[in-house]
């Protein structure tokens, strides 16, 4: 509906790449919990990281809608691969909006090429949905800072080269006392926790980071001191479009697998696709996937038009995440016992879907945001 011819070209390319390169190995990556660096480097060469980085800064310069289309297709191949694309999009958006020309020159190219691996570090043991519990601190130390504290459940922590870390620079200023630092994760004083073993998206490497007296040079500060919380939040609209698309991609993969299976599997001398009970599951999957896709795309278009997209992005992320969990459960149901067995795609899809209700703001938090926006701007706002 919103998609132009150029968008279609981008989508077709991502779809073909996902079909040929990603989907065939998803099952192995899931089983082995392996970081697919070689796929990421190939994606870097094809411009699939940092999709919104302007041409003037060496990126492809596409809009949020193109990003949404790419995320859906990559995720249809394997959600962990898409999640890496989402992570790089967040980081590169931060650099484009808030980085100095020197920081952009130093980091954008290596990050977009996937040769430099990044982490986006907010969450702590006491600071999940509520970041006011943030305890990591950066205290003035000569011209720079000293970083102390710890982060948990950070995507890429076991493998990343640099982290974008939210830390308190003023203990008494609440949300206005937080700043973002670009931290060399191989520096002295940085300690990485072990890789966590997760329910789904198992090729994504997630773990903890601990900082003790890590020396940060002045140029480690991203943007304005004290504006870190707002900067991190400002890219989350786009992040939510990304996770919403990722959820749609998981749902779409589930529908394709289930439709195929239902037309092959025979019981009671008929294809199970001939039974109304199975048909209604398929119909509900298709309609909810399409509804989620349209919500996500309209939120993306709102961002691209410069409108206030906060509510639209939260609605899209929340609806798409809930849809993905419910509809991949239907896909498992259509597969019967096979759907519960490792090695069948839908078993993995169901596990991969669950996290879309949790990260990038839980779906309870999304509802909170939607309600807050409703009260602020009215039922039509």
């Amino acid at each position, binding site marked *: 509906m919103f998609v132009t011819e*150029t968008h279609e*070209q981008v989508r077709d390319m991502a779809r073909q790449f996902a079909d040929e390169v990603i989907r065939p190995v998803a099952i192995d990556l899931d089983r082995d919990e392996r970081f697919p660096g070689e796929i990421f480097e190939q994606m870097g060469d094809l411009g699939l990281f940092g999709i919104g980085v302007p041409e003037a800064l060496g990126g492809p*310069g*596409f809009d949020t809608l*193109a990003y949404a289309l790419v995320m859906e297709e990559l995720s249809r191949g394997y959600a962990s691969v898409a999640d890496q694309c989402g992570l790089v999009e967040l980081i590169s958006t931060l650099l484009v909006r808030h980085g100095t020309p020197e920081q952009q020159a130093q980091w954008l190219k290596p990050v977009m090429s996937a040769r430099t691996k990044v982490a986006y570090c907010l969450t702590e043991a006491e600071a999940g949905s509520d970041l006011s519990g943030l305890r990591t601190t950066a205290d003035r130390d000569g011209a720079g800072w000293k970083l102390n504290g710890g982060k948990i459940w950070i995507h890429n922590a076991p493998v990343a080269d640099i982290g974008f870390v939210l830390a308190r620079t003023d203990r008494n200023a609440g949300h206005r006392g937080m700043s973002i630092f670009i931290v060399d994760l191989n520096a002295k004083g940085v300690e990485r926790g072990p890789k966590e073993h997760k329910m789904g998206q198992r090729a994504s490497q997630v773990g903890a980071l601990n900082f003790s007296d890590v020396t940060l040079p002045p140029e480690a500060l991203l943007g304005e001191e004290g504006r870190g919380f707002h900067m991190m939040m400002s890219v989350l609209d786009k992040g939510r479009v990304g996770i919403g698309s990722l959820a749609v991609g998981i749902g779409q993969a589930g529908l394709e697998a289930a439709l195929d299976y239902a037309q092959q599997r025979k019981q009671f001398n008929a294809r199970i696709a001939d039974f109304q009970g199975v048909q209604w599951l398929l119909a509900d999957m298709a309609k909810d996937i399409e509804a989620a896709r349209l919500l996500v795309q309209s939120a993306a278009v709102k961002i691209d038009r410069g409108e206030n997209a906060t509510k639209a992005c939260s609605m899209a992320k929340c609806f798409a995440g809930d849809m993905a969990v419910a509809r991949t459960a239907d896909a498992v149901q259509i597969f019967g016992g096979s759907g519960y067995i490792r090695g069948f795609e839908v078993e993995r899809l169901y596990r991969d879907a669950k996290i879309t209700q949790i990260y990038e703001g839980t779906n309870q938090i999304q509802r909170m945001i939607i309600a807050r926006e409703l009260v602020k701007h009215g039922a039509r706002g």
Partner: protein
Amino acid sequence: MKILVPVKRVVDFNVKIRVKPDGSGVDLQNVKMSMNPFDEIAVEEALRLKEAGKAEEVVVVSIGPAKAEETLRTALAMGADRAILVETDDAVEPLAVAKILKAVGEAEQPGLILLGKQAIDDDCNQTGQMLAALLGWGQGTFASKVELASDAVTVTREVDGGLQTVSLRLPAVVTTDLRLNEPRYASLPNIMRAKKKPLDRRTPADFGVATAARLRILRTEEPARRMAGVKVGSVAELVDRLRTEAGVL
């Protein structure tokens, strides 16, 4: 040297083809269209020759409806330098296409014309050969290897008995087979750049070619449905039924 690559917009190879109820042809309503896969191979080969320093410019040309611009943009996104669209809504046949390509070739003066051995919609496998004849150039069809020198091209051809290697004086016409190469993905930056690359719009009349049909399609049918198999009780029964029912022994 300049390489000219003709590309055709056809039904995507993944689409399940439906025949129109009146049998006049294939239903193209709401069907995904793409570049003919053999032409994609031709574009890829031209780009590799350019990257190897053997050619300076890759020009793509398509003869077809306005929508064929998408196909040309895909070729530009792969890396071609500029495009020519010869726009017509007529269903074009190999001879008319070859005549238009001859005129384009005379205007552009390429050292090499690289095109698919056939299009997957009508499987004619005629355009390249007709074009070479009309131009009076040498032809190397069904290429699985192309080596370009300054005044000649060596083409390894996939023929029934195996491989045949021919050497052609330039300019020449070469048609591509499946095993020549594996086409690249268009990168996102190149998709963006392709929007700004030059695309020249022409019509068959500009080249003095009439595209009216010379062929008449009598009927289009779907292939017969595969029959369900039968289980036999013993080898003896199998042999008997192969002999009496199938008549193959």
